[in-house]
C-alpha cells in the first residue's frame, strides 16, 4: 500500500557490488517505505540476487560503492547478524541444509536472539513450540518439520515454506525474498504467497525478487522494478509486470 507519508525504511543510493571479482550491481537506487510491496524483476544475471545477498551481508559479496540506509542506519557497516537483529530478512533462493541441527532448535535460537532488541522475553522450548505450530498452520506445514534437521532432505517447496515460516517467526521490518517462487508448483506457490500476504502490514515492507510474473498474481506489488545490467532501468506499477510477461525482457532492453 502506497502512502506518501509512510515512514522511510530503506534507501539505497548508487549501490555497486562485486562478487568473485566481477562487478554485478552497478549503481542501483531504491527507496522503500513502510507498508509497501515491491517486486524486482529481471533476466538471469541482471544482478537481482546479488543485490539481495549484498543487502543481507553475504561475506562473498563486496560493496564497492554507494550507500544503503535502513531505518537511519548505514547497513554496510553492520555484520549480517546485526542487520537481522535490526529487522532485515533475506528469504534465500537456495536455503542451506544443516544436518545435525534440529529445525526447532534453530528456529528458537533465531527467534530468541532477536527478542531482546525488541524488548520482548525469550521463549522456552515449550512456549516456542506452541508459537511455531501456530505459525506453521499459516503455511500448511506439518509440525513434523520441527523435528527434522534444518532443511535437510526438504523438497524445494518445503524449503521455501520453511523460509517464510522463519519470516513469520522473526517478523522482520524489511524482507527481501529471493526467488521464493522458483521451484514451487502452483499449489505450493498459492500457499506460500498467501503466507506472505498475511505477513504484510502497514509497518513493514516486502521486496520480491523474481524472474516471473506468476507470483505477482498472488502477491500484488505496489511497485515493479526491472533490473538490467546491475541497475534498475524501469519502474512502474503492477501492469509493468504483466507487460513484461507478455513482451519479454528484450522489450526492456530495446527500450
Amino acid at each position: 500500500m502506497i502512502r506518501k507519508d509512510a515512514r522511510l525504511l530503506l534507501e539505497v543510493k548508487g549501490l555497486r557490488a562485486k562478487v568473485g571479482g566481477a562487478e554485478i550491481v552497478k549503481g542501483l537506487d531504491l527507496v522503500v517505505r513502510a507498508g509497501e510491496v515491491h517486486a524486482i524483476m529481471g533476466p538471469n544475471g541482471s544482478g537481482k540476487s546479488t543485490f539481495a545477498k549484498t543487502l543481507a551481508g553475504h561475506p562473498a559479496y563486496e560493496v564497492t560503492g554507494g550507500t544503503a540506509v535502513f531505518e537511519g542506519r548505514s547497513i554496510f557497516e553492520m555484520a549480517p547478524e546485526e542487520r537481522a537483529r535490526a529487522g532485515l530478512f533475506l528469504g534465500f533462493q537456495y536455503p542451506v541444509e544443516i544436518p545435525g541441527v534440529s529445525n526447532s532448535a534453530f528456529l528458537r535460537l533465531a527467534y530468541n536472539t532477536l527478542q531482546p532488541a525488541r524488548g520482548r522475553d525469550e521463549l522456552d522450548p515449550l512456549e516456542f513450540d506452541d508459537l511455531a505450530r501456530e505459525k506453521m498452520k499459516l503455511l500448511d506445514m506439518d509440525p513434523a518439520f520441527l523435528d527434522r534437521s534444518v532443511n535437510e532432505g526438504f523438497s524445494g517447496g518445503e524449503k521455501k515454506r520453511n523460509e517464510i515460516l522463519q519470516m513469520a517467526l522473526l517478523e522482520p521490518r524489511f524482507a527481501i525474498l529471493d526467488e521464493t517462487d522458483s521451484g514451487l508448483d502452483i499449489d505450493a506457490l498459492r500457499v506460500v504467497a498467501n503466507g506472505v500476504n498475511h505477513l504484510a502490514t502497514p509497518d513493514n515492507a516486502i521486496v520480491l525478487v523474481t524472474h516471473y510474473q506468476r507470483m505477482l498474481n498472488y502477491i500484488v506489488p505496489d511497485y515493479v522494478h526491472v533490473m538490467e545490467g546491475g541497475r534498475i532501468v524501469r519502474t512502474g506499477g503492477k501492469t509493468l509486470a504483466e507487460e513484461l510477461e507478455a513482451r519479454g525482457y528484450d522489450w526492456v532492453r530495446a527500450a
Partner: protein
Amino acid sequence: MVSVAAKHPYIEALLKGYEAPRSGASWLDERRAQALERANALTVPTTRDEEWRFTDITPLTRLSFRPAAETKPLALSGLSRFIAPEAGARLVFVDGVFAPGLSATTGLPRGVVVSTLAAALDAHAGAIEPHLARHAEFEREVFTALNTAHLRDGAFIRVGRNCACPAPVQLLHVSTQKEAAAYPRCLVIAEDGSDCTLIEDYAGLGDAAYFNDAVTEVVVGAGARVRHARVQREAAGAFHIATCAVTLARDARYASHAVTLGARLSRFNLIVTQQGEGAEVQMDGLALISGRQLADTHTLMDHAQPHGRCRQLHKCIAGGAAHAVFNGKILVRPGAQLTDSSQQSRNLLLSDKAHVDTKPQLEIFADDVKCAHGATVGQLDAEQLFYLRSRGLSEGRARNLLTYAFAAEVVDRIPVPSLVAQLEETVLAQTQAAEPA
C-alpha cells in the same frame, strides 16, 4: 625388588622400584613376568615406527613418573559431574587405586558380577584365567607390556550366560596426582547370550601432568551384546595411552563409542577381533581437541571369520594448534568371506594451525567382500555460517552450533542419555569462540 635391565632408559625409569605384585595365582605371576620381560626388551616407539608415525611421544619420555602415592580420600560430591546417574553399578579408581567408598556394586541383577580384579581372582579364577592378559597382546606393545607387568588390581565385570544387565556399569578412573603413573586395567566378560552396557571414563582433577597407561579387555560371547561408551577427559597436562582389545564370538554384537576430549597427548588403540562368524560391530569415535593437544586413535577391525559386519564413523574436531591422528585398519583375513565393512573418517578443522592426519588402511585377503572407506577434511561451511548469521546468530554462536552439529552424529548415538547431555554441553563450551554469543 627385581633387577631391571630395560633396553630403554625411559622404561627403566618407569620400572624403577618395580615390585612384582603378589597374587597367589601362579598363572598370573607367570604372565606378569613375561610382560616384564617384554617391557624390558622393547623400546619406546618413535615417529620412525609406522604405527607411531604422526605421534611423537618425546614429551612423555621427558618426564619421570612415579607410581602413585597414597591418595587423599576424595568426596563423592567432588566427582558428581563424572557420575552417570543411570549406572546400576560403579567402580571408582583414584590414581589407579580402587576407592571402595566411592564405588557402588549392590543390587545388581542375578548373574552379574562387578568387582575388583583382586577380589575376583579367587572366586572367579576359572573365568578370569582364560582371558586376562590373553586378548591385549603385549609381545610387541611396550605400553601394554608395562601395564600387564604392573597388573595387581583393576575392574572385573562378568555378565553370566543369557543374563542381562539393563543399567550401565560405570568404571571411573580419576587422576589427581602430579607426575604419577597409573596402570588402569579392566576385564569384561559378557558370556554367551548376555547383554550389557559399559561406561569407561577417565577423568582428571586439576591440570596436572600425569600418565595413565590403560588396558581393557572385552570378551563378547556368542550372541552376546556389549555397548561400550568410553570417555577420555583427562587433565590438560596429562598423558594417556590406552589399548582396548575386544574379542567377538559367533553372532556377537559390539558397539564402541569412544570420545576423546582431554590430555596433552593421548593414544587410543581399539582392536576388535571377530573370531566367530556373523559378528556385528559399530565403531564410533569423536576427538574434540584444541590448544596444543595431540589425540591419536588407531583402530583395527580384524575380520578373521566370514559374515562379519562393521560400521565405523570417526570424527575429529581440531581447533587451536591441535593435532588429531586417525589410523583405521580393516583386515579381512583369508576365508572371511561376505565381510561387509565400512569406515568413514570425517574431520573438521576450526583454525589454520589445527592439523589432522587420517589414514585408512584396508588389507583384504578374501575375494567376496564389501569394504568401503572415505575420508574428508574440511572447515565450517561458509554458506551455512552465513545462513545462521542472517537469522541473527552471532558468528561465534553460529560456529558453535555448526561444530556441535558435526559432533552430534557421534554423540547422539551414545547409549547413556546423561552422557549425551553432558557431552553436548562440553562440545558447546569447548567450541565457544572468543566472541560472546
